[in-house]
């Protein structure tokens, strides 16, 4: 059986909000599955219910075809979005503590190498940087040589270099045949790391599939960005969709050449125009009518 995780009609309701409202997906072994969506979409709640932090209101979660139990706890590694480290312990001691909680353990040296912890092994947890802390949290998630790894927004708050460092680690994990479930609100991260993505909003999955296929099916055009104040009549005369930004407008034309020609005819200033392929953020915008980072 290649299906590692199956989620069927998962719901999690609170008195005032339906945080997860009928989510279903299955994850095959060895892939990186991304749960993409803005803050408040229900990604973390979905993941935490699957991890067992909180019970679902309804629905079923199967690990390797069976209900989660001891095997799930032994074989799953988790990195939470916001977690402090045990105070007064060093990086090495923290890793050893968590390794000792499991029946199966990763090779310590390999773990240190994968997560680039060599230089901070003897540092107090309170004295490491944000990027180092995220790498240690990731190492803790790998302490039991897991089959399935949950990473909840692992790069939030990191600088670009630290973020890319972490991406390298996740790619490395994938090469070892591990299955990764990643939640993120960075579309670039999802596009680079994930084999399959599911886009969430208001507790529901609104699209899922390989990123390239989703873009090809729903968002295969070009985006034209104009840092000019263009009036609505002009925009409506261009075939395609558009959205007003704070400092300009983004146009998704059906035909790029016609769009440029129309703008030139109307003597719109094109000196600050940029053109790019549409991305997951555009897809999200198309599906929900709002930007991913809202």
């Amino acid at each position, binding site marked *: 059986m290649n299906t590692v995780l199956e989620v069927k009609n998962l719901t999690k309701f609170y008195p005032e909000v339906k945080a997860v409202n009928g989510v279903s997906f299955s994850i095959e072994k060895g892939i990186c599955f991304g749960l993409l969506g803005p803050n408040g979409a229900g990604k973390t709640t979905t993941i935490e219910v699957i*991890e067992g*932090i909180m019970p679902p209101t309804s629905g079923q979660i199967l690990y390797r075809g069976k209900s989660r139990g*001891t095997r799930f706890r032994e074989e799953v590694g*988790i990195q*939470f979005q916001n*977690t402090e480290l045990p105070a*007064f312990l060093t990086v090495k001691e923290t890793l050893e503590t968590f390794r000792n*909680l499991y029946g199966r353990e990763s090779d310590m040296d390999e773990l240190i190498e994968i997560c680039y912890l060599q230089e901070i092994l003897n540092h107090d947890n309170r004295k490491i940087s944000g990027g180092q802390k995220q790498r240690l949290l990731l190492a803790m998630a790998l302490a039991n040589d897991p089959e399935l790894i949950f990473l909840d927004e692992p790069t939030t708050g990191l600088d670009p270099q630290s973020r890319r460092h972490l991406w390298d680690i996740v790619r490395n994990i994938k090469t070892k045949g591990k299955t990764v479930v990643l939640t993120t609100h960075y579309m670039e991260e999802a596009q680079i790391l994930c084999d399959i993505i599911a886009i969430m909003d208001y507790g529901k999955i609104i699209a899922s599939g390989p990123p390239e296929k989703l873009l090809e099916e729903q968002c295969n055009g070009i985006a034209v960005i104009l840092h000019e104040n263009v009036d609505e009549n002009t925009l409506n005369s261009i075939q395609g969709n558009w959205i007003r930004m704070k400092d300009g407008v983004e146009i998704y034309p059906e035909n790029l050449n016609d769009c440029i020609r129309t703008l030139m005819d109307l003597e719109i200033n094109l000196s600050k125009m940029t053109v790019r392929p549409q991305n997951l953020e555009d897809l999200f915008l198309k599906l929900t009518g709002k930007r991913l980072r809202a």
Partner: protein
Amino acid sequence: MEFFRDRAAYGWNLLFPFMIIIGFSVMFNEDQQIMYKVGVIIDSSTTQTHDSEDISVSAIEDHQYRNFRKTKYIDFIEFNVFSPALEKLTHHRIDLLINPRSKHYWISRTSPKGYIVERLLKAGVENRKTLYKEKKISGREIPYSEWLFPGILGMNIMFSALYGVGYTVVRYRKNGVLKRFSVTPLKPYEFLAAQIISRLYLLFITTLIVFLGCTLIFGFKCHGSYLSLLALFFLGGFSMVSVGLVVAARSSSEEFANGILNLISWPMMFLSEVWFSLEGAKPWVKTFSAFLPLTHLVDGARRIMNDGATLLEIKYQLLMLAGMSLLFFIAGSVSFKWNSN
């Protein structure tokens, strides 16, 4: 490991008991212990009238005064002028005012200590007709600091157990460390057992250091068995840790936990006979005190250390501590949650 690297907490746990013992030994040195203050007018030419209804004046005999002057633990303060002395008497800053030359004394009718000192003054006269005969008793005199020492050890155990376990677990829950543990194969009872065992181990070390230090510095002795004392402290420590677990069972608010721990520890500190005996206290106070684990820990420790009691002789204290430990441990374990949600 966290305890030994947290130098502030580590230092506090070790230094605080020493500071208390040193301070109280100095303050309550037997030679300096003053119970009452009596003003003595040495210049009889000053005016000695007053118009306060609270102040009464009576006559005394020479021999009464002479006997009274020999009374220990009374500070006789000399005044040249009557008015300020009377003012102090009115405000209960002195307990009795006496003029040996005019053979008068003044007390405040509203002062309980003044009442006692007056009785001492009047009792200073030999009375051949008295019906009571003096009987001498034998026994070892226990200085206050030595009486206090078991209480300080017990109090130290209480604070270390309550805050070391209760506050720590709440902090772990607040910052997500418990949440991280909850997704490992670690079971709640394993986590709680680890907390209890590690804290008892630390309590043993810190109590031993304080005990040995005070023994060396002040010459305190344990007149009973050290093993009995160890068993009592172990059980007392376990009961305190269990109380801490109840407080920490579900809360993730450090402020709330701190408040609850203060609410528990302060009454225990003052009503468990750590600092003073509750003899003479109201019955409901004594009843309340009997429900506090620190009361039995301190009482048992005093009986062992000061009176040489055996474990059999303190079985009541041991049973109470065991019962409370079981009750609090079960309550804390059953109500424990990894998360506050």
